[in-house]
């Protein structure tokens, strides 16, 4: 079985992208940009939503090959809804992440997709898990992914504080996405953000012209 080439000339649509998720005091924020491109030369969609709802209070962000990511999230959604019917209770966030992990690990040769899972459950409250390309699973307070994430590691390390307020965390996530979109040519468009707390889910969309501007813009 031939491993598909990882370079940007791979055929097909890829979500060269920026995705992130961060926990705050009482919830999580998960967000992404909205650009889908082919080989870094053509923007095939300016407004794609990479934040996918896999259950009532659990969302996923996808990175990598768009086709692979969509197929995996579809399968994960099915597995999770079946699981929650069997257990007669909403699934745990880690269950959602584990479903993605199993799919990514068992099909690691064919797939080229990574995920960030974030949500709220009654057992552990707000959580963020990351499942990168090979199928590892690790929980972190904040995590970033996608091609645009390389540019904001320094910003996230410096600016993230555990137990921020909801507004601080939302501002932090918006800033981080704006900075990454400003430097990565395959990330852009609008910022999609979802805030998940015990009480529910709120979508925030920040159009390109309303994103924060920095000194060089």
């Amino acid at each position: 079985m031939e491993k598909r080439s990882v370079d940007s000339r791979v055929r097909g649509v890829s979500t060269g992208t920026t995705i992130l998720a961060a926990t705050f005091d009482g919830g999580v924020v998960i967000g992404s940009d909205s650009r889908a491109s082919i080989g870094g030369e053509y923007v095939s969609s300016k407004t794609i939503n990479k934040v996918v709802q896999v259950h009532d209070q659990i969302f996923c962000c996808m990175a990598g090959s768009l086709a692979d990511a969509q197929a995996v999230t579809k399968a994960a959604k099915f597995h999770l809804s079946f699981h929650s019917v069997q257990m007669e209770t909403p699934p745990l966030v880690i269950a959602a992440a584990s479903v993605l992990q199993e799919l990514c690990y068992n099909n690691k040769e064919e797939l080229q997709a990574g995920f960030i899972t974030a949500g709220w459950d009654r057992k552990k409250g707000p959580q963020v898990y990351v499942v990168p390309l090979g199928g590892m699973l690790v929980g972190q307070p904040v995590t970033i992914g996608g091609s645009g994430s390389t540019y904001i590691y320094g910003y996230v390390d410096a600016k993230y504080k555990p137990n921020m307020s909801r507004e601080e965390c939302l501002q932090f996530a918006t800033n981080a996405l704006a900075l990454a979109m400003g430097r990565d040519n395959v990330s852009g468009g609008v910022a999609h953000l979802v805030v998940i707390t015990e009480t529910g889910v709120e979508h925030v969309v920040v159009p390109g012209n309303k994103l924060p501007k920095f000194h060089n813009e």
Partner: protein
Amino acid sequence: MLQETGTEWLSQEVKTGTTIIAVEFDGGVVLGSDSRVSAGASVVNRVMNKLSPLHDKIYCALSGSAADAQTIAEVVHYQLDVHSIEIDEDPQVRSAATLVRNISYKYKEELSAHLIVAGWDRRDGGQVFATLSGLLTRQPFAVGGSGSSHVYGFVDAEFRGGMSKEECQQFVVNTLSLAINRDGSSGGVAYIVSIDEHGTEEKVVLGNDLPTFFDQ
């Protein structure tokens, strides 16, 4: 890794995979760099000073291939010496940057080094020039090296015009610390050079004195 004999590093090119930064303030510049030199997976020098003087008040920061970068710096140091004798005064920062750019551009296929040139002169005060791939552009600040990609977001967000010398030094130290934490090819200590009308000051910030962040 089971077959590694431990001598691959002898045949791999020595690179200053690195983080370098230069920032202009009103009255001078601050330059900063890490101190790691790697050959493949080995660190061959953990205390190299990548801030190289081109003249009394003009320094350059080295990144890329260690040999290429050092050679360019030495050649330009010599050319600037001759030039400053010819004009009978201290050279301009732009002149130093132009000399570096001329070499980088002419030999761009053979060389693989990026030098950031920064300094102070009487005509234009503190200036920072980037010379990547043979271009020449003056910027309020410049970052370079393998570690720089991780801190673009941070410097874009945190840089403000009109900072004082101490604020610039803190900004440089914070940026280097963040990059060292994320880039495997950057590490060691932080070298800081501050240049203004009164003189040049060199400082070293040891690894355990670097700022730490929420996950450390």
